[in-house]
Every structure is written in structure tokens, then in C-alpha cells.
């Protein structure tokens, strides 16, 4: 077991533990912090998988911005210490657990099955692309060449989201 | 003396924030490099206290070591804080003297009335301010302690200028 795979297992365990903590968290703040742990660990796993840029963006965008937005809303709504537990009844919990166990097992089985991976159009693996364009450039190249329409559409989506959020949340415009 | 009020025009609009900020920074920098500082290095460098400063008491003594106090009872009567305890006694020559004379310096408000009222100039408030003790009861000064104090006494007023003009 190399050092990197050891790190992978550590952060995979952290990510899983954070996920469980989020679902089981007693207050929204506890859930949120567990989710931050998960997101941070996944960011590290991205870096271990060679996706440096995506890993860091994951931490900046998810852990640093989206989660702070959640936090802000939780505090704004003052869901603080005297919070009512909101788990569904035992039957629901049991059912959901079984269903998710089955789901996890199915997904696991799908992934462990033999499949042949076919490289996409560029014909380069991620490592080769990083070698050629650098950690950031490797992602930028396809984004601004092949997927530039999608890129522009996401910016449009973000604009719509900004306006929508303002319209929804502001009492008086 | 009338207090001069200077009206300064501080418009809220049309002010250059940047220039104002830079001006402020220059001002603070000038003060920072200015060698004139107001700090007094207190234990090394004692502050000059005013001649009318009123601190802890002292009792004047006669040459033979007896207190000058004649136990007339004026000071406990006039004391607004009621901090003086006096038990008068009389010796075989008929001289009154204090058997117990205690001043609670915690209750004392350092008004100086005891000094003013004393007919024999026995009790004085002194020019002393370093009164620190480890226990509270050390602040009840008894007669021996009061007589042992040797700091200068307060000039309640300048005899040549009683109205302090």
C-alpha cells in the first residue's frame, strides 16, 4: 500500500463518516459541518486522483461558498440550539436504510463488474492533458474549445439564479 | 471662562474619502514618529501630585512620642463617611488622649474635613497614594500606624491665599 492509497483510505473514511454524520446530525449546524467534512475530503480525494484544479475548486466553491451560504441561511432562520428533532418515524428509517443498502450494493456491483473504458475524442488521459497544459490549462482547454456553448449557458443559468434568488428572498424590490 | 465652540464644516457629500483617509494616515504617522510621548514610567518616575492632593491620613506626634490628639471627638462627628472610631480616655493629669483611634481607609472619602476641623492640628490627610495591602483589614489604620506615617501632609489651602485666587 503506497502512501497515496493510504491517504485515499483515510479521506474516504472521513467522507463516509461525514455523510453519515450529516444524515444523523441532530441540529442543522451539526449536519452542515459533517457535510463540510465530506466535501473537503472529496476535494482531497480529487487531488489524489490527479484532478488538482477540480479538487481545489471543490473546496473553494462547495466548502467555502455554498456551505457558507447554507450556514448563513441556517443562522438567519435561527435554527440554533433549541431545535426540534426531525427524523421520520422508525418505519421510514428502516425502510430507507434497507433501500439505500440495496442501492449501494447495486451500485457497487455495477462498478466492480468488468467494463472496458474507452477514451473520449481527445484521446488523452487526464494525466497526459495535465502534463501538456498544466493543472489549470488541462481543464480550460476543452472547456473553452469544445464546451464553450455549455460554458456560456452555465453563466446564463447563474445569472437567472441570481435574479431568481433576489426576487424570491427580497420582500420589497 | 467661556468655552470656545468652533464650528467645523464637515460636508458629508462631495468629500474625497481617499484624500481624507490618506490625511488621517499621515496624521497618525506623524504622531507615531513624534518622540514626545505622554506616558509616565510610574514606578520609576513618580507623578507630581498637587499640593492639595488628599491621601491616607497621618497623626502628628509630640516630641515625646504622644499623639497630639486630644480626643475631642470633632473628627468622628464631622466625618461624612463615618469612618473614624475614637474612644477617648483621660490620664491622671486630666489630659484627654485617644485610647482607640482607628480610621477605615476603605470607607474614607478623603474629603479632608477631619483635618479642617481638628483644633490641635493632630490628624492630617497626607500626600500619599500608594496604599496597597494584601488583606482588607490592613486598611483599618490604628493609632500606631497613623503615627508611624511619615509622608508629607496636605496643604488644604494656601494660608496666604485662603480663597485660592
Amino acid at each position, binding site marked *: 500500500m503506497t502512501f497515496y492509497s493510504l491517504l485515499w483510505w483515510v479521506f474516504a473514511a472521513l467522507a463516509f463518516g461525514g455523510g453519515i454524520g450529516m444524515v444523523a446530525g441532530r441540529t442543522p*449546524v*451539526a449536519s452542515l*459541518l459533517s457535510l*463540510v467534512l465530506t466535501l*473537503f475530503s472529496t*476535494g482531497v480525494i480529487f487531488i489524489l486522483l490527479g484532478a*488538482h*484544479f477540480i479538487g*481545489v*475548486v471543490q*473546496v*473553494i466553491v462547495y*466548502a*467555502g*461558498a455554498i456551505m*457558507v*451560504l447554507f*450556514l*448563513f441561511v441556517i*443562522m*438567519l432562520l435561527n435554527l*440554533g*440550539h433549541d431545535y426540534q428533532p426531525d427524523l421520520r418515524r422508525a418505519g421510514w428509517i428502516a425502510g430507507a436504510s434497507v433501500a439505500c443498502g440495496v442501492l449501494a450494493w447495486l451500485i457497487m456491483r455495477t462498478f466492480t463488474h468488468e467494463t472496458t473504458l474507452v477514451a473520449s475524442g481527445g484521446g488523452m488521459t487526464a494525466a497526459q492533458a495535465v502534463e501538456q497544459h*498544466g*493543472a*489549470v490549462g488541462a481543464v480550460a482547454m476543452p472547456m473553452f474549445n469544445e464546451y464553450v456553448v455549455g460554458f456560456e449557458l452555465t453563466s446564463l443559468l447563474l445569472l437567472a439564479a441570481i435574479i431568481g434568488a433576489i426576487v424570491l428572498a427580497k420582500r420589497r424590490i | 471662562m467661556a468655552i470656545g465652540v*468652533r*464650528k*467645523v*464644516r464637515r*460636508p*458629508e*457629500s*462631495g*468629500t*474625497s*474619502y*481617499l*484624500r481624507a*483617509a490618506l490625511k*488621517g*494616515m499621515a*496624521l*497618525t*504617522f506623524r*504622531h*507615531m*514618529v*513624534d518622540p*514626545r*510621548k*505622554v*506616558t*509616565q*514610567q*510610574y514606578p520609576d518616575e513618580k*507623578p*507630581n501630585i498637587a499640593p492639595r492632593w488628599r491621601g491616607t491620613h497621618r497623626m502628628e506626634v509630640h516630641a515625646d512620642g504622644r499623639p497630639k490628639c486630644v480626643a475631642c471627638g470633632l473628627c468622628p462627628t464631622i466625618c461624612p463617611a463615618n469612618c473614624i472610631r475614637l474612644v477617648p480616655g483621660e490620664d491622671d493629669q486630666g489630659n484627654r488622649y485617644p485610647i482607640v483611634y482607628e480610621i477605615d481607609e476603605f470607607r474614607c472619602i478623603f474629603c479632608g474635613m477631619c483635618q479642617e476641623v481638628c483644633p490641635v492640628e493632630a490628624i492630617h490627610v497626607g500626600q500619599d497614594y500608594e496604599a496597597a495591602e494584601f488583606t482588607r483589614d490592613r486598611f483599618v489604620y490604628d493609632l500606631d500606624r497613623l503615627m508611624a506615617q511619615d509622608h508629607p501632609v496636605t496643604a488644604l489651602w494656601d494660608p496666604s491665599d485662603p480663597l485660592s485666587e
Partner: protein
Amino acid sequence: MHDLGALSDTAFLIASTIKVLVAFVVTLVVVAMWTLAERRFSAFIQDRLGPNRVGPFGLLQPAADGLKNLLKEESSPGEAAKFYFMLAPMLAIAPAFLLMAVIPWAAPLPTPWGLVDMVIADVPIGILFILAFSSLGVYGLFLAGWSSNNKYAFLGGLRASAQMVSYEVSLGLSLIPVFMLVGNVTLTETVWVQQEGLGIWFAFPLGLAFFLFVIASFAETNRLPFDMPEAEAELVAGYHSEYSSMKFSMFMIGEYAHLLTQSALMATLFFGGWDIPFWQGDDMRVIAPGVVEGAEPAWWKSLLTFFAFAAKTLFFAFVFIWVRWTLPRFRYDQIMDLGWKALLPTSLAFIMLMAASILVLDTLGLPFGLGYGLILTAVNLVAMVLFFWVLDNDRILAGASARREVERRPSEDEAVVVEEPEEPAVPTGAGV
């Protein structure tokens, strides 16, 4: 090109360990000293002397403070969420120290075992790493405020999260012109481009970005013009109202470590890092393990460049103190206005301007060098003048009070015009 040999794996491990230890210890010591410096400089600004009794010039004051904080009773509110209450100071202190890992602090050092990079980790995503970890800094503050179960602490945490999210945007955007000029995001490359590639510190071609970066840094470190999260006058002590002894100390250490890393970043990104100006002898970069391009490395060059880096960093750290004791605190809505209505559009416009200028210059075929930098400097100068002309004097944006004043402005003859009072002389010999 100088090949000084790469480190072997063992030597690399040993060198890295030493570098981590040295960086951590030096940062801690400078942080301690900077708490003293803050108190001394603030005292000088207010015509006082500040703490000068413990040791020569008060140099042992931080040690005394540390000892006091270690020995003090540790209290925690009865209704606090204990686990998070413990966690918050750790979260506040960790990101600030982590940032030091990617900042290069001197020219590479030749040793008998090979060439040692004077940066703990030259990661390929340097500046993004910094953004990532400084964005995690908000959790410590927020958690402290929330877990204390105190309404003032809670308000402090709320303000901290709103403010840091708002200013992070400008912080990140003000760095994009730097990326555009460097063509990369590593910090070592940034230093190299300022030394040789462009031959001019980025503060000149990207002055407006630097200005925005400084403002956003103040907001990120919660230093005074932007210290809403702990505003003493309004919120007791904000998010750390309920903290005492060493836990409180950890917040302080975190704040000053953050201050130092931000100063180091200003030095590295905009003032050439460890570059010594007007001297070609230190212009070098590592292009492969053990291989150096440019001037020849030497131990005394490493030492000199380290001093240059330290001088720049401490200068900016001093500016932090200087500004803190000069400017008053903003009001909360003014902070939000400034962040979203002034800094964000300006940084976006500046990115557009710089991108367009670079595109034009590249199309014209100008070689990337000093002339290129000077043209960009001229463009930047125009942008800065325009920026200050627009934002200053309420020409376009005005505060609410200024608008109100315009409505009820008296006629000119009514205005009482008295000249500003002269600056009062320094008073001497006040009371104890």
C-alpha cells in the same frame, strides 16, 4: 542554466521536515512579536509608549501574555455546544498556518546534497490553494459565534460569514489579472515573471488589482476598518466573547497569522516576493528538480532574498496596524455596499480591461518584457485615476447620509465656513 543536482528521497524528506518546522516556528514567533508590535505601534500613534517593561523594549511581553493565558481559568458557558466550542479555535488557527506552506520565501539554496527549494510545497495550484484555505477560515469564526449560545457572539458569527463570503469574491477576482500575466497559478512562477518575464513588479501594471486585494485582505482578516465580526463597541467582543485563556489566545494567534500570510501574499503576488529590486543576481527559478535557470544560486543570495521577503512582508503587516489605528469602523450596510457595489464591479471591469490590453499587445506582437509591462502600467494608471474619480466625491456612488444631505443642503451663504482646527500639539504631563 545551472545543474546543482536534485535531492535524494531521504534528503528531500529531511529537508521538508526542517522547512516545515522552521516555517511553523518562525511564523509563531513573528506572530507573537506582532501582537507586541501592534500594541507598541498603536501606543506610539496615540502618543503613548505601550508595553515596555517586560524585558528589553518589552520584547518578552508576548511570552508573559502567553504564560498568563496558559495559566488562566478556562471558562465555558453552561449552555454552549461543548464539542463545537472546543473545535472553533482550532478551525480558526489551522487555515492561517497552512497558507504559509505554499509561499516561497527565498531563492533556492544550494547544499552539498542538492538544491533545496525555499518553499515547503510548490503545488501546481498555489494561489487557488490559498483561496481554498482562506475560504475555510470562516468556519472557525462562525462556529465560535454559534456554539457560545450568546446573542452577541452569534451576531458576530453571522456578520463574519456574510462579510467573508462577500469579500472572498473580490479577493479571488482581483487575483485573476495576476494569473493572466503569469499564465500559471503557482507562486514561484509569479515571482519569476516579476523578476525576469515582465521585469516589473505587478504592483505597477496591476495597481488597481493590488488596491482591491488590499481592501479584500483587510476584510478577510477582520482587521479594523472591517472588524464587524468582533466590533467591540457593538458586540462586546463578537464571536469570541465567551472565550477565555488559551482558547482566546488561539483566536488571537489565528488573526495575526492570517495577517502575516496576507502580507506575505501581497509581497509575493504584487511586490516581487523575495526579489531584490534593481539586481539581476537573484533572478532565478527552478525549472526541474535541482536545475536552475537564470542567475547562479548561492547561500548568501538565499539569505539576502529572505531578508528582502521578510522586509516586504513586515512592511505590509505594519500597514495593517497603521490602518487599523487610523480609520474608523464601517457600518455593516456600508461594508456590504462596498463589497458588492464597488469592489466586485471594479474587479470585473479591471479583468476585462487587462484581458483586452493583453490581447491587443499580443496581437501587435509586442515581446513579453519590460516595454509590455510599461504599457500595461500606463493602462493601469488610467484605470486607477478613473476608478478614484468615479468612486470618490460621491460622483456616482454615494452613502445614504450624503444623499440626505444633498436633499437638505442649505444655500451657500448660510453655510458656516470655519477653517479646520490646527492639529493640537502633543499634550505633555497629563495625570497618571
